[in-house]
């Protein structure tokens, strides 16, 4: 073991106590109402104001990169899809680029357009999901239920195109696994028209509502200089006025044809303030932008092949011979995803695989956002970067006065015990019928 944590934590606590004799230390998390995922915030609070914060992730790290180096590349692709539970397409879209670069695979144009369509549909559903969560964090649950209701059609479309509401398994090295056939265009266009018709409602409910404005204007401010030096990404960076968007800066797939421009609040005629309100503005504008991108894709998408390797066995053989390294970047709904991969000839598994999710880059910008904010604003400031913790981390810990690692055997045993307790209450005939 390297550095012990405790002496440093103590030194830090002393430093705060000296600086602020009236500060109280308030731990929030790892399980807390601000976020459905495990992360621990420790706030030093003076009255109602936050004077300092410490953030400790690491409660859902699954060691996915390590697992990836023990599996063949096709298995790694499916593993990558399971890094994030919300924007499940983001990591596959990044890893296919990295592997295609490393193995020198040419992708048919139609496949690149289909990747864009699925990626943008994902952005619409993810931004709507976030808008609902943000409304909930503000205590506006009516709006949460409304937004999540109107989010359903995009999930239905994704299910229609891919066979699943989440984890679509569409990209593969060299192309995509399923086409978007012309007979699906009308349904897709209908859904896009439906979302266009809702834009005015969204603007009224989110941007013209006095209670939302009162809770988000001037709250959780990230200045452009802080966003730049702390390397913020995605809507968090753009809401602070940085025109930073991988689709524009370092284009990929069919994005160069679609002329994507990074969106900031200035595009709605607003002055950039870098607060939570601005983050709502940027995400709403991006929903409109995604609708436009998909419409253009449907018009311009060329016919042709959808994959360079119709047979998976040929693809695996090609990948086994490949040697080289590559990087793949994708602008996920939350910001930049980057995958670095190194392949060695004769090896089925990647020798090195590094994954970076957007929340990883947006962790440092949280510190200035929380500074001098009120306790009541903790949930919305935390949610404003649209954090995805399981995505950022990739061991299960029980805190019972001390940190303890729980292994899968123990978790499964606990699950069996529970099943036995339930079955015990149901009687022997049920056990025989259910085959438990």
């Amino acid at each position, binding site marked *: 073991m*390297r550095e012990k944590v405790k002496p440093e934590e103590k030194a830090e606590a002393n430093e705060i106590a000296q600086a602020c004799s009236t500060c109280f230390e308030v731990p929030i998390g790892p399980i807390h109402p601000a976020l459905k995922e495990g992360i621990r915030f420790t706030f030093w609070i003076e009255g109602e104001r936050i004077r300092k914060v410490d953030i400790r*992730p*690491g409660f859902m790290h699954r060691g996915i990169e*390590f697992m990836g180096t023990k599996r063949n590349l096709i298995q790694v692709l499916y593993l990558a899809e399971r890094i994030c539970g919300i924007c499940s397409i983001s990591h596959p879209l990044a890893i296919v680029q990295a592997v295609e670069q490393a193995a020198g695979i040419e992708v048919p144009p139609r496949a690149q357009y289909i990747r864009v369509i699925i990626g943008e549909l994902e952005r619409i559903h993810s931004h709507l999901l976030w808008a609902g969560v943000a409304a909930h964090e503000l205590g506006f649950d009516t709006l949460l239920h409304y937004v999540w209701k109107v989010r359903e059609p995009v999930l239905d479309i994704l299910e229609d195109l891919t066979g699943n509401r989440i984890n679509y398994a569409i990209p593969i090295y060299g192309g995509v696994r399923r086409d978007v056939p012309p007979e699906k265009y009308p349904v897709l266009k209908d859904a896009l028209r439906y979302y266009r018709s809702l834009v005015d409602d969204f603007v009224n409910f989110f941007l013209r509502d006095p209670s939302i404005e009162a809770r988000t204007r001037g709250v959780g401010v990230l200045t452009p200089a802080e966003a730049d030096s702390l*390397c913020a990404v995605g809507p968090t960076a753009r809401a602070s006025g940085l025109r930073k968007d991988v689709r524009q800066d370092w284009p990929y797939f069919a994005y*160069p044809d679609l002329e994507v421009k990074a969106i900031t609040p200035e595009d709605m005629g607003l002055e950039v303030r870098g607060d939570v309100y601005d983050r709502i503005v940027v995400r709403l504008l991006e929903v409109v932008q995604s609708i436009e991108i998909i419409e253009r894709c449907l018009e311009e998408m060329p016919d042709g092949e959808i994959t360079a390797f119709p047979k998976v066995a040929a693809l695996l053989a090609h990948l086994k011979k490949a040697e080289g390294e590559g*990087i793949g970047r994708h602008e996920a709904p939350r910001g930049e995803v980057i995958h670095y991969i190194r392949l060695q000839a004769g090896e089925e598994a990647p020798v090195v695989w590094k994954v970076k999710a957007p929340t990883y*880059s947006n962790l440092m910008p949280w510190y200035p956002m929380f500074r001098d904010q009120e306790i009541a604003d903790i949930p919305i400031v935390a949610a404003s970067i649209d954090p995805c913790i399981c995505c950022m981390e990739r061991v299960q810990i029980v805190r019972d006065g001390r940190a303890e690692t729980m292994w899968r055997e123990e978790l499964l045993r606990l699950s069996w015990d529970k099943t036995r307790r339930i079955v015990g209450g149901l009687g022997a005939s049920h056990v025989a019928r259910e085959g438990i």
Partner: protein
Amino acid sequence: MRAGEVLAALQGRLGERLRNPEVKAETVGYRRPRERECLWAEIAREDLLEAVRTLKELAPLHISIISGADVGDRIELIYHFAVGYGTETGEVMVNLRLTVPKDDPVVPSLCDLIPGAQTTEREKIEFLGVEFQGIPDTRKLFLPDDLAVHPWRKDEPELAGYVRRTVAWEEKGDEGKGEARREG
């Protein structure tokens, strides 16, 4: 920003110490084809701060990630920078590779130049056992405080124990799941 400009600036400052520089260009897009570029190069750890200062003077600088690997008796780190965000196709991916011996895995920290580099540097401390000189916070970030191994190091005897336990559970060994099935 073009990769040629970045390369000229880095060579101007580091000269021969920028080893094996290679510009890789790719054409992307079909109706409006665009060229996007990557620069790969190797540097010594003594030159890292100078190189990053040079990049920072050139254009807006973003550090995407530091990737790392155990390559025998050395640890390899690749710094992936995105130089020049904000304009269409204006970004160059600059990938600077450096290696450090395992018995002296010390690298200067970038936190003074790019405070946002702290997360990725803290991750490399826990996963690879690299030391960063000048980093303001060295606590664990993703791994449990009591985990004594560096999971990406291939020479960690304790790590092999963790892996054996997991693999046995996945029925690649005889213990673990067989026993579990009997119980189930």
